[in-house]
């Protein structure tokens, strides 16, 4: 089971962030004006398990309909009726379309990827992180030692240590809700169905169709991220439809699970240990000092 997050329909309402906090009773961690965008939660952390990124770009996504009137063909029924409400011009309306700058907003709700090869799970020395019967990755808070090893191991910067209790926290994909046959709180709360929960194979199929549709419509920058079971983490339990390169959303372009190199790492360490033993032995053998 997993998530497909279709960022092309995300409206940046942050309902998922709030629903996640509410359901999981995550402590408040401060809403800050970051000064970088309208995003006030910055990134995933111990107390932010869903994070909606806002990306402002000087690019057109397409020709967006900005006037109040809908074309008759849209079924809106002709010109708008004046209700006598106070009104003002749309920004840029005076200058004319040609003078308007390009602008688009990308929004994307990020979450733990529930990797098939999860580095956090591999390196945990206490077995606190485990894989559930749904294929997701969950921390058992009563066992977590707070060693923090999983934090730098995660190639996506998801799991994090909560300062005041010293343990790590992250998205559980609402393990408790799944057990009761409910979908995760974020997916439930998403008003545009940008977050979809379900069987991964089915989601992947749906996602592929969606990308095709967008490409047909001329949005050729649409691509899937994290859906490939042959990628560096063996495919993720949460994958995304993005409209730009992953790094623009704060995602690594080609993450690889760190433990893929571990046999090689151990081998080099073993040779180094033997080198040390041999070298120090030699200091006694060479001549009497």
């Amino acid at each position, binding site marked *: 089971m997993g998530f497909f997050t279709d960022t092309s329909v995300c409206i940046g309402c942050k309902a998922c962030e709030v629903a996640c906090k509410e359901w999981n009773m995550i402590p408040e961690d401060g809403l800050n004006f970051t000064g970088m965008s309208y995003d006030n939660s910055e990134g995933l952390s111990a107390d932010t398990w869903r994070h909606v990124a806002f990306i402002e770009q000087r690019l057109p996504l397409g020709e967006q309909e900005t006037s109040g009137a809908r074309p008759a063909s849209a079924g809106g029924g002709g010109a708008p009726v004046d209700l006598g409400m106070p009104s003002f011009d749309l920004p840029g309306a005076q200058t004319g379309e040609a003078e308007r700058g390009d602008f688009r907003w990308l929004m994307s709700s990020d979450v733990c990827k529930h990797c098939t090869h999860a580095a956090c799970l591999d390196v945990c020395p206490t077995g606190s992180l485990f894989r559930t019967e749904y294929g997701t990755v969950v921390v058992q808070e009563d066992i977590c*030692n707070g060693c923090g090893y999983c934090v730098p191991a995660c190639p996506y910067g998801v799991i994090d240590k909560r300062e005041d209790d010293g343990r790590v926290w992250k998205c559980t994909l609402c393990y408790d809700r799944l057990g009761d046959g409910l979908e995760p709180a974020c997916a439930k709360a998403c008003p545009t169905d940008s977050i979809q929960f379900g069987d991964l194979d089915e989601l992947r199929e749906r996602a592929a169709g969606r990308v095709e549709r967008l490409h047909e419509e001329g949005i050729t920058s649409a691509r899937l991220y994290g859906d490939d079971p042959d990628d560096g983490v063996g495919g993720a339990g949460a994958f995304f439809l993005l409209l730009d390169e992953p790094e623009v959303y*704060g995602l690594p372009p080609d993450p690889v699970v760190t433990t893929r190199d571990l046999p090689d790492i151990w081998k080099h360490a073993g040779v180094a240990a033997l080198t040390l033993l041999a070298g120090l032995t030699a200091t006694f053998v060479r001549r009497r000092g």
Partner: protein
Amino acid sequence: MSTSDVTKQGMRGARPGREALTGSKRVRRRRGDRHAMVPEAEFRSYYGKPVLNQVPWAATDIAGYLFLGGLAGASSVLAAGAELTGRPDLARAMKVGALGAISGSVVALVHDLGRPARFVNMLRVCKPSSPMSMGSWLLAGYGPLAGAAAATSVTGLFPRLGTAATLGAGLVGPAVASYTAPLICDTAVPSWHEGYRQMPFVFVGSGAAAAGGLGMLAAPVGQAGPARRAAVLGAGLELAATELMERRMGMVAEPYRTGRAGALMRAAKTLTAAGAVGGALLGGRSRLASALSGAALIAGSACTRFGVFHAGVQSAADPKYTVVPQRERVRESGLISDQPKVPKAREASEPAAG
């Protein structure tokens, strides 16, 4: 609201939001657009925010832990050698040094974890996929050996047991000195992971230099010969391995040369080289020179570990070190991204718009 199936069109299985096409109309391209664009940056990121979450370890705890582990492990090997070749003073100094260092490293670890019971919790499972788990078991085995070796040596009780413990600690010592390299390299931190081939050699070299330094500092000149040679060997290995590591790492080596990490790495090189040369030339003649060189070597080894630690922290804090190498890899492998980038997408849609 994925379960709300009430739409304007009535009850529908299809979910309205999903089929919405944001700005799906084709783009009309205006002349001069390309020049109006901000020139493309070397790499792109989410407002310069790091991709990785920062290592939650305190430098004094974990860099100190790396240093003390190396010192202890290599000291135990020297202690065993000194014991077997009849250098009692050197042996005692190294055994006491090893116990002190390993106790210090356990204190650092426990301080990082928060409370002692958590160290015991580490022994719940035994996982080769976790260097920290392996390390906990190594410490649990090595600690008592080093303790017994030092205690018997200082008190003079149970000499046989003491010799056995000394040899045991000497055999486990190299593993204690080298496992800390996998510990930090088995992470997604670019400047640690990329160096995993050379890092163990940097660490054992640094450990040997520190242990040699300790021997020169604590044992009489007459018995400290092996310690001096260990220091020279270790310093040579450390400096060569560091050099090789930085060359092989490409751009990810930058953090080793900048900021706090850069300063520490430069200090480490100077202290280590000075200590090794001073020890080799003068250590055999003057007690003072021997002690000074020894102290320089120990300080150099500590600087190396703190430098490596901070280089990792610096590399995790800057998204460049995560994004650029991965982008390169993608480009080279040609696996993904023949998908056009956004500006191209806009051009691609031009004819249709015309």
